[in-house]
């Protein structure tokens, strides 16, 4: 049986091609096609049909965009599929504590920010969509700068971001959306590599008062691994000021290797969602009590910092 030795090698991992190949030994053409129709091809055809339906919707404009400019059709069919390999294969992200994120109703996810480019927020979006049982979309609050940049601005809105202001945050949370905020902002994302995993100041606590006014729980989220994707070793403040951006990063590979230096290092990530901090008992009056807001802000910050230390201790290495 020489055929048996030769043919399976061609399609060892693909049962349909093996079937096709072994069948072809007996009946050359008819059976393989029939076999495939029953197995892989209809699925493949369905995918093409799905893609065609998607393209048709895009060409004719027959899709819905919410008031914030969020385009679920584009997010689910283009943006998430593009990010997914990065999440699963490249950073091999492990999520913990997903049960702390409610399946419905508003909540505010507060996370540490790092990595020179906000890859961590996009990965948190993938985590909550792919690994939460309710497949929730995360609505991110983004910095002013994002909405002034061509191409970036509409992409941000279409993928569910909106401007980080109290009006928008409260509107989203009241509507029962899952809102994500990175209160360190540019201080966190653009900090030098030597200060990795040291939380920066948490803004003015605006996110806490927004959560208090909307009566939604605050869920601390700790992200380990994003600090190492672009180790920021220097900055060109003069150029940054001239261009009106917070910093111009220098990493060991950028700008030294040019565009190649833009490839992130394949660190292994862990995203942990902590226990929710309930705010509905405090009530919206608490939002006008600055001391309470400061204390709550510190509490959230402390929880994230402690979780980061715990995860760092448990981590075997940066890359594995």
């Amino acid at each position, binding site marked *: 049986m*020489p*055929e048996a*030795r*030769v*043919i399976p090698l*061609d399609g060892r991992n693909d049962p349909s091609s093996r079937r*096709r*190949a072994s069948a*072809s*030994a007996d009946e*050359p*053409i008819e*059976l*393989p*096609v029939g076999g*495939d129709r029953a197995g892989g*091809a209809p699925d*493949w*055809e369905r995918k*093409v*049909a799905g893609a*065609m*339906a998607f*393209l*048709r919707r*895009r*060409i*004719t*404009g*027959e*899709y*819905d*965009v*919410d*008031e*914030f*400019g969020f*385009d679920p059709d584009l997010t689910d069919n283009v943006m998430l599929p593009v990010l997914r390999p990065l999440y699963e294969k490249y950073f091999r992200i492990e999520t913990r504590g997903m049960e702390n994120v409610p399946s419905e109703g508003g909540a505010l996810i507060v996370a540490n920010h790092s990595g020179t480019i906000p890859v961590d927020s996009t990965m948190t979006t993938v985590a909550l969509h792919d690994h939460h049982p309710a497949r929730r979309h995360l609505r991110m609050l983004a910095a*002013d700068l994002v*909405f*002034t*940049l*061509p*191409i*970036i*601005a*509409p992409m941000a*809105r*279409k993928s569910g971001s*909106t*401007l980080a*202001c109290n*009006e*928008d945050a409260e*509107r989203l949370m009241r509507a029962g959306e899952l809102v994500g905020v990175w209160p360190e902002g540019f201080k966190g994302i653009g900090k030098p590599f030597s200060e990795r995993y040291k939380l920066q100041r948490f803004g003015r606590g605006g996110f806490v008062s927004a959560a208090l006014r909307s009566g939604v729980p605050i869920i601390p989220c700790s992200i380990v691994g994003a600090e190492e994707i672009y180790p920021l070793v220097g900055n060109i403040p003069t150029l940054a000021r001239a261009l009106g951006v917070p910093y111009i990063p220098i990493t060991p590979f950028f700008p030294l290797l040019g565009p190649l230096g833009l490839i992130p290092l394949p660190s292994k990530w862990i995203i942990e969602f902590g226990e929710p901090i309930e705010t509905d008992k405090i009530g919206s009056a608490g939002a006008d009590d600055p001391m309470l807001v400061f204390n709550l802000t510190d509490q959230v910050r402390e929880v994230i910092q402690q979780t980061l230390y715990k995860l760092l201790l448990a981590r075997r290495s940066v890359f594995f």
Partner: protein
Amino acid sequence: MSAKVVLVTGVSRYLGGRLAAQLSADDTVERVIGVDVIPPKTDVGRTEFVRADIRNPIIAKVIASAQVDTVAHMSVIATPFGAGGRTAMKEINVIGTMQLLAACQKAPSVRKLVVKSTTAVYGSSSRDPALFSENMEPRGLPRSGYAKDSVEVEGYVRGLGRRRPDVDVTLLRFANFIGPRIDTPLTRYFSLPVVPRVLGFDPRVQFLHEDDGMEVLRRAVVEDHRGTFNVAGDGVLLLSQAIRRAGRVEVTFPSPAVSLVGSIFRRSGLVDFSPEQVAFLQFGRGVDTTRLREDFGYTPRFNTIESFDDFVVGSGMTRLVDPARADALGAAVMGLVGRGAAAGMGVVGAALSAVSAVRSPANA
């Protein structure tokens, strides 16, 4: 307080004319007086037309002699076309409003003032919240054109409200009107053969169907709704999406070039591309209509998408990108894929059997 004698300014313009026609069909309204500098071209029913310029103090005599109790100020105009340029437009909008309000303040018979304003008073910038409520301040005050005029008009209207607290002031901030019949800078924009867009930006836009707008205006005149209200269809469209729904072809320019292209369009008298329109095409705008629905008590019958679709169908524009054609193309591709898949598998199967046929004697 029901409106007995209504004065409608800007009666020769589209919205003013329609409002006058609607009011004259209403039996509870005793008299409708329409004011404009040119006679109305449309049928305005039993409206009595008075040829007067609101920039002229003669308007005070009209109000006093007819014992007007309700004034609907509709002559804040949005484009310099037809008005005779930007200077004349500003005169009509700002000086006209000042004169009209001065006359209203002096006339004890006036009990209600309804003013057509625009959501453009919120401006358009990258720092805007997703939706503006009536009590929110613009992030940057509009510095030119219709939007600036409207901000000033609103200022004078508020002034009158302070000085005459017995007058019920209704300020209606309308989103961009759209519909099968109305002619606005935006309907002209979407009717361009190739629609220009700002490169790298995709603003959210909200539309208000002309019929909904008219109904809100009518109710504001015949019912009592003191206050400021945003009026817009529910939901938003992205500009790119709107262009696709209209079956138009778009062309993108970087924002400095849009201003340049805009001024060419403006000079050619085709479409009004004033700087604040360019900002709108870059950042867009959305408004919250909760107050309209809950306090005013009106829910627009058309949402933003339906309004826009009604405009596309009703204005009879030719769709360059046709959904039917897209369907045909889709079907063709699917057919090709189906056949291609079958053929492809067949070829692979044949190739494999050929390979095995070649190899088997060699191995044997």
